[in-house]
């Protein structure tokens, strides 16, 4: 049986190359699996694939060594590339089989897999045949691969591996010892785990479904269980549950899991469940996530019923405090809904202690409940529920999600996130409130949570208010809840309206569901007979009095309207009027109250303080100017936005079914794509015209130097790398946005480039560019930012600090969830790749590369780009200076830039930085010098594997440094075919009398495993050459993104 052969050989190698550690590990596993022999095999693979992740880094290292010998002339680089691509894989595979490490991370992974494999084992018999087939495939693949590594440099491998192994172990130990930084530690571990997963998955060419049993506690206390594919995303489970519940208006609900007794996390529907749970059991509770401010607007009774159930829980648990009377009243509606009309005989037999009306239920309360119950005679269950909700919704804590925190003085407070904004409580008292329109930015850093609020009436600067959360995860959770609530309640759609596209800046996490506006629209389309459902204990329906129930006027809806009219009536003579209103940002400006307990800091000063002085001192010209403009823009922007919002809040949105359907579909399709697109390749080819001047050579040298320098750094703790990744992602977003702007508005871009200066304020997306000190050509200018961040990050890795990276100005989400959505992965990946390349002495070419990857991010697919790296930048000079400064400052600077953009964007900005999730590898081959740079750094991998290989042509002479030419034209052409999307960006510039045409092609090859990417790439390059016979290819960047299968055996 092929399977056995495969595993046997692996085992053999294992014992050969590994010491006692491995053998120790093995019996243990065997013991654990003895019950089920067939599962033993699976287990084996699990454990073997895990180490392979570890070996990934060593592989990369080897690769660096190997590559020099492998590098060929650029003339041949296309065919070799194909080969190389393969050999790379081989090495990985082989290592995977070769090595095993008993590090903690590995052990964890094993345990995890074991748990998950249990249900699978139960079904083993059924799926056996299928499984066998799959394994066969896999084994075959391994076999093929194993031949080639021996070709490359087999001898060096073991030694390298051993060394690497030791390093890894050290790292783990280091981490374990670092108890003071618990969060960091956790992150690091996660990261490793993910690396393992991802790596394991990479070995599996075929998909196999492995399912896990989930249990979901429903609102009525019953349990729903189902089997899910192990890699299923949260949405899958959620949809199943809603289907089970027959619930259509599901956007108000969510699934949560208990991380610890006091910490409840929402399951992100867009992410894999497994990654969110880590090794927690697959137990969830179905809960209301967004409490509808006006339940009467819900379309279906069944939705209201579930909301009632949630509120009953909230009340009974004390989360929703009520007075005695309200407890009694709500209890009486509960009785009416569940038992029907009061019936003395029947109720005599009812034990009211079965119901929990209040956290502590007294006889007096029960009597009062019964007394009130009698008065509800005639209400149908649905009516009783409605009455229940009408009363419950007015409770001050209705829909308020409380988070414990401390203010800047260490006083215990609670932060309440609700539909309208953020509430600050001390004890039970509300001491401050920040309506969403007033909040400019939400961020967190370590365990601190910050909000930046609009300046009050007489103030000039924004204030940043910081709160201390119990820990990092709590801070992130709060941040996420804020992001979600804001999006749900305040935005029309979760996607950025064109005008507000910068909203995406700096943050990866987004609320991906429908907003309240959308779900309301969707609800209007519900066209089904009211579903029958049984209330928990309703055995009989009470008689319905038609028309007995008078609709309750929803005052919350009209809350924004009364002000102005009334006021104008008074506003004359001695009588002055003011509107006390919460809905609108501009009106809020009139109320500059600060709660005494909250520490207020003036915005700019604060950032200086927090981020270290250097950044603003050094870059003051740049930064401050930008800031000012940014503020102007913000105001304008906000004006329009708040206008929008007000409209939104005040008027019921017109039904636009197609609109929401579309929005609904978009994220879904992305998810799906992520799930099944096992192999995403990003391939970038660059071509340059001959007279073009680019500093490739210099660049290469620098890169090399940097590589050497970086070598030790790459061994730094993973978390360090993770920081880098996070930050770079931030920047990436910026770039992405810009790119979009450019593509969409070539004309403006041109103008801008010609001027060589920033756009005038207020010109929209282009504004961002002013962040950059110098003139650059379109995509180049984009890339400069991203690579600048890269640089700093790069250094940061060496200087690792657990969470250091977030400056106040930029908010990043610190992602402790190990992976991001698939859509996001590529962006991270590509960014990281560029970072690897971008040495401190960042060179123009690198910038170009960065820009490409940014584009890739946008498209989120595979890209082949023909890129003319003619960019040289004044900018570069600036960077070089900076490089000599310490890492921190660099980083600050970068962050600062991002933050500007942030400000520009929207009042509610949400930025975040994420921990490492991506493994990347950068291979640079320069034909001219026959030098090959391979810099690798392992950053924990998550879902995607990204490889970027850059080929640079020798023809490029390095003289480009200095000024940028005058841009003549820029155009972008996009064409699509079945599996590829080609974006051609042509830029013509004049530099020193020489005209230069840069054609940058991005060819995105998307596809499943069936597609031969290599073939497609070769074809793409061929075509590119054919199309531009008079041009030379100067740069080929192949960016490959693979979504890794995991959870397969």
């Amino acid at each position: 049986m092929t399977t056995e052969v495969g595993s046997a050989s692996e085992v053999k190698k294992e014992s050969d190359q590994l010491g006692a550690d491995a053998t120790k590990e093995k019996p243990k596993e065997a013991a654990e699996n003895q019950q089920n022999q067939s599962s033993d095999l699976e287990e084996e693979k699990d454990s073997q694939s895990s180490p392979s992740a570890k070996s990934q880094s060593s592989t990369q290292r080897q690769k660096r060594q190997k590559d020099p010998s492998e590098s060929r002339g650029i003339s041949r680089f296309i065919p070799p590339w194909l080969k190389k691509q393969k050999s790379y894989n081989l090495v990985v595979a082989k290592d995977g089989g070769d090595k095993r490490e008993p590090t903690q991370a590995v052990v964890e992974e094993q345990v995890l897999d074991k748990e998950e494999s249990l249900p699978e084992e139960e079904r083993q018999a059924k799926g056996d045949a299928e499984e066998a087939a799959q394994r066969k495939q896999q084994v075959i693949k391994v076999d093929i691969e194993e031949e080639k590594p021996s070709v490359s440099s087999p001898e060096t491998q073991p030694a390298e591996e051993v060394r690497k192994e030791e390093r890894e172990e050290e790292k783990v130990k280091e981490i374990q010892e670092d108890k003071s930084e618990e969060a960091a530690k956790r992150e690091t571990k996660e990261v490793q785990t993910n690396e393992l997963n991802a790596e394991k998955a990479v070995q599996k060419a075929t998909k196999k479904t492995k399912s896990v049993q989930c249990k979901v506690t429903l609102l009525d206390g019953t349990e729903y269980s189902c089997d899910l594919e192990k890699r299923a995303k949260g949405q899958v489970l959620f949809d199943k549950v809603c289907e089970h519940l027959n619930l259509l208006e599901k956007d108000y609900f969510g699934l949560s899991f208990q991380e610890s007794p006091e910490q409840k996390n929402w399951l992100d529907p867009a992410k894999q469940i497994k990654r969110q749970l880590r090794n927690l059991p697959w137990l969830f509770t179905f809960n209301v996530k967004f409490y509808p401010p006006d339940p009467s607007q819900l379309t279906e009774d069944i939705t209201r019923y579930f909301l009632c159930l949630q509120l009953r829980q909230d009340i009974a648990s004390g989360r929703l405090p009520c007075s005695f009377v309200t407890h009694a009243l709500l209890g009486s509606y509960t009785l009416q809904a569940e038992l029907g009309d009061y019936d003395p005989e029947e109720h005599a037999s009812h034990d009211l202690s079965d119901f929990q009306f209040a956290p502590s239920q007294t006889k007096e309360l029960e009597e009062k409940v019964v007394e009130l119950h009698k008065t509800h005679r005639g209400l149908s269950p649905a009516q009783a529920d409605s009455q229940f909700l009408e009363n419950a919704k007015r409770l001050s804590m209705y829909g308020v999600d409380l988070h414990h925190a401390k203010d800047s003085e260490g006083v215990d407070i609670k932060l309440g996130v609700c539909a309208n904004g953020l509430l600050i409580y001390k004890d039970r008292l509300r001491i401050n409130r920040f309506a969403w329109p007033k909040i400019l930015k939400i961020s967190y850093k370590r365990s601190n949570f910050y909000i930046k609020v609009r300046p009050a009436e007489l103030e000039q600067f924004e204030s940043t208010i910081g709160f201390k959360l119990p820990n990092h995860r709590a801070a992130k959770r709060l941040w996420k809840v804020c992001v979600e609530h804001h999006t749900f309640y305040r935005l029309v759609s979760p996607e950025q309206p064109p005008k507000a596209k910068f909203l995406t800046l700096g943050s990866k996490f987004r609320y991906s569901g429908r907003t309240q506006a959308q779900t309301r629209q969707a609800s209007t389309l519900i066209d089904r007979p009211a579903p029958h459902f049984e209330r928990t204990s309703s055995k009989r329906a009470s008689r319905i009095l038609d028309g007995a129930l008078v609709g309750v006027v929803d005052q919350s809806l009209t809350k924004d309207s009364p002000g102005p009219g009334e006021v104008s009536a008074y506003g004359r003579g001695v009588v002055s009027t003011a509107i006390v209103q919460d809905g609108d940002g501009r009106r809020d400006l009139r109320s500059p109250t600060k709660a005494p307990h909250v520490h207020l800091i003036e915005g700019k000063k604060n950032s200086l303080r927090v981020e270290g002085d250097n950044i603003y001192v050094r870059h003051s010209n740049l930064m401050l100017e930008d800031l000012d403009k940014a503020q102007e823009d913000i105001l304008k922007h906000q004006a329009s936005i708040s206008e929008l919002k007000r409209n939104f809040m005040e008027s019921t949105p017109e039904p636009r079914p197609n609109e929401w359907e579309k929005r609904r579909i978009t994220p879904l399709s992305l998810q799906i794509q992520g799930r099944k697109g096992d192999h995403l390749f990003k391939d970038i080819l660059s071509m340059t015209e001959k007279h073009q001047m680019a500093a490739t050579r210099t660049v290469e040298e620098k890169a090399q130097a940097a590589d050497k320098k970086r070598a030790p750094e790459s061994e730094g703790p993973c978390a360090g790398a993770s920081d880098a990744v996070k930050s770079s992602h931030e920047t990436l977003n910026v770039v992405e946005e810009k790119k979009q702007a450019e593509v969409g508005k070539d004309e403006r871009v041109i103008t801008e480039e010609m001027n060589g200066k920033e756009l005038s304020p207020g010109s929209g997306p282009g504004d961002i560019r002013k962040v950059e000190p110098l003139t650059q050509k379109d995509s180049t200018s984009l890339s400069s930012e991203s690579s600048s961040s890269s640089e700093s990050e790069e250094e940061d890795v060496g200087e690792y600090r657990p969470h250091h990276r977030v400056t106040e100005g930029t908010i990043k989400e610190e992602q402790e969830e190990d992976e991001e959505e698939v859509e996001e992965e590529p962006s991270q990946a590509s960014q990281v790749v560029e970072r690897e390349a971008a040495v401190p002495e960042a060179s123009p070419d690198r910038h170009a590369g960065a820009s490409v990857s940014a584009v890739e991010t946008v498209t989120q697919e595979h890209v082949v780009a023909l890129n003319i790296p003619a960019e040289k930048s004044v900018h570069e000079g600036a960077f070089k200076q900076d490089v000599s400064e310490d890492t921190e400052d660099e980083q600050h600077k970068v962050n600062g830039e991002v933050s500007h953009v942030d400000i520009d964007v929207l009042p509610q900005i949400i930025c975040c930085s994420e921990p490492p999730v991506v493994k990347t590898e950068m291979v640079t081959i320069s034909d001219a010098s026959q030098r090959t740079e391979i810099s690798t750094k392992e950053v924990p991998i998550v879902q995607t594997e990204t490889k970027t290989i850059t080929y640079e042509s020798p023809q490029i002479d390095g003289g480009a440094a200095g000024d940028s030419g005058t841009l003549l034209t820029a155009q972008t052409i996009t064409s699509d075919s079945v599996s590829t999307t080609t974006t051609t960006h042509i830029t013509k510039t004049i530099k020193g009398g020489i005209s230069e045409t840069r054609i940058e092609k991005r060819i995105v090859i998307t596809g499943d495993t069936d597609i031969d990417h290599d073939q497609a790439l070769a074809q793409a390059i061929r075509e590119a050459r054919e199309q531009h016979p008079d041009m030379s290819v100067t740069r080929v960047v192949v960016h490959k993104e693979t979504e890794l299968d995991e959870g397969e055996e």
Partner: protein
Amino acid sequence: MGTPGEGLGRCSHALIRGVPESLASGEGAGAGLPALDLAKAQREHGVLGGKLRQRLGLQLLELPPEESLPLGPLLGDTAVIQGDTALITRPWSPARRPEVTPGGAGGHPRLQGRSGVRMSRARSSRPKVDGVRKALQDLGLRIVEMADENATLDGTDVLFTGREFFVGLSKWTNHRGAEIVADTFRDFAVSTVPVSSPCHLRSFCGMGGPRTVVAGSSDAAQKAVRAMAVLTDHPYASLTLPDDAAADCLFLRPGLPGVLPFLLHRGGGDLPNSQEALQKLSDVTLVPVSCSELEKAGAGLSSLCLVLSTRPHS
């Protein structure tokens, strides 16, 4: 609970307490207060009671004056009533504690000079000090006590808007006191509002209607209003009156069907400048009363009477 805002001003009963001679006879003067014309003060008080009973149609309960409690007429400081619940406060001034001490315990006559505003001396050796509590209890309200020794609360630092409470953190009311308000009236948001001037929250603001906050034009008043605007989830219009004291008005809805609610306010004799502005309030019947003499003892409309509904939920 009713519709939001609807609960505001619902009332069937009013409770007042007669003006004792002790209010005018020396204690006030000793504290630097202008001498009080007792007869005038009593006359004002009588007119107020008459308006509550006759003009508004409320059941009026008048507690007899208690000489030991010179500030007894200011019973608005001693209780916060919402719905069926009455929170008996713990006034900051120890001299006034006997007003809320059950059964008169701890009501030993003492000379007080600390407040400077409300200095008084109880004379009677057996004060009937539990009048307010007992009266409210007899009316069927749930009585909630403030047991916490650290809490201080004057009832006139509490503004109920119909949807939420604002508690002024003033010279007389501290955070703990406000917290107990929040604990007592759990259905409602209770926000704290810093009060900068040496007065109670209610002495410069009130409700002119379910959605209208009325405030004086002093800095303290405007500051407080802005604070409330930030803190509230609900939209209120705000009407600014020239005189702070004019904003201390009572929005009352005795519940007669088809009858406009009433706004009991300081009349033109007291505060002529604010009358025109008050006319802007729509949908209320203005009922002017005067209490310029009682004002010298720190009284305002909100402190001179307690209104309540015995059937708040019907």
